[in-house]
C-alpha cells in the first residue's frame, strides 16, 4: 500500500506498524519522534499503531547541535 513519508510516496506491506516501518528503513527509534496524520504518536504506541493506505507519516529527527 502507498503512504506518504516526509512528503515522499512509499510502498509498504499491509499492516506495517510504526515500529516495523522504522526497522524497514533502518532507523534507530531513539533518534526520532513520529507524527501520523498530524498527531504525534507516543513512543509506547509505535508497535501497536498500524499504517493504513494514504497515511501521512512524518519522521522528525532530534537535532541537538547548535554551538
Amino acid at each position: 500500500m502507498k503512504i506518504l513519508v516526509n512528503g515522499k510516496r512509499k510502498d509498504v506491506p499491509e499492516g506495517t506498524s510504526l515500529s516495523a516501518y522504522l526497522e524497514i528503513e533502518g532507523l534507530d527509534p531513539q533518534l526520532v519522534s513520529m507524527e501520523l496524520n498530524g498527531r504525534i504518536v507516543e513512543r509506547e504506541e509505535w508497535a501497536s499503531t498500524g499504517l493504513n493506505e494514504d497515511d501521512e507519516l512524518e519522521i522528525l529527527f532530534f537535532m541537538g547541535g547548535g554551538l
Partner: protein
Amino acid sequence: MEMTEDQIHRYSRHILLSEVGGSGQVKLLNSSVLIVGAGGLGSPVALYLAAAGVGHIGIVDMDVVDLSNLQRQVIHHSKDIGRPKVLSASEKMTGLNPDVEVKTYQVLLNSENAREIAAPYDVIIDGTDNFSAKFLINDLAVLTGKPLVHGGILRFSGQVMTIVPGQSACYRCIFREPPPAGAIPTCSEAGVLGVIAGVVGSIQATEVLKFLLGKGELLTNHLLTYDALTVLIRKVGVRKNPRCPICGDNPTITELHDYEQPVCANPV
C-alpha cells in the same frame, strides 16, 4: 523615542519596508532578546540582531573560543582563541552597532539561574548544542510564558521552530524527553557543515524580528527542516499535544530541572 539622523541613515533599508518603517525600527530599538549559546547558531543570530538594531541583547555562554569553533562560529576571530565567547561576541556586536546594549552571562544556564537570567527579556533564542540545555530552555519558556525560537543542527541539516507558550506547540509536544545520553551524537563526534549554522541561525533571527515587529506568519505549530544535501526545505505542521508533559492537559513538569547530560565543553 525619536531616532537620530544617524539612526535613520543606518536603518534606512528597514525603514523603507512598509512592514517595518520608522515605528517598527523604534520597536526593535526598544526590544530585548536573550541568546543562549554564542556558538554556531548564536553567531549569526547575534550579528544580525545587533545589525538590525535590537536594542538590548543578552548572551549566555560559559565557554572560551577554541580553534575548532572558527569553522562555523563566525562571530569569533582567530585572535579570540582562548577568550570567553561572550566577550568576543559582545565586542563584535557593539563594534557593528553601538546602539545595541549587550549584557554577557559567562555561566552555564541551569535550573537555578535560568529564570533570573531570562527575566528581563522579551524573547529567547536557543543556540545551544545539547539536549539538557534545549529541554531546560523549552521548559523555561513554557513556565515563564516567554516566546522561544528553537534551532538545531546536525551534519548537513537543521531545524527551526517558534514556540509561543499557551498558543502553539512546544518542543516537548514533539520531542517528549531528551534521548538517552549517547544515543545521538551532539558534539564533536557528529560533525556539521559550518554554513548550516548560518542558514538555521539566520532563520531563527528572522523569526525573532518578525515576532518583535508583529509581522508575517511565525513558525509556530510548524517544524521547519532544512536538508542541504537535497536542498529540501519542509515546513511540517505540528500541533499542541494534549499529552505534552509540560504544556498538555495534565502537565507533570511544573518546575525547571537539569538533565544529566554531558555538556560540549571545549578542551581548554
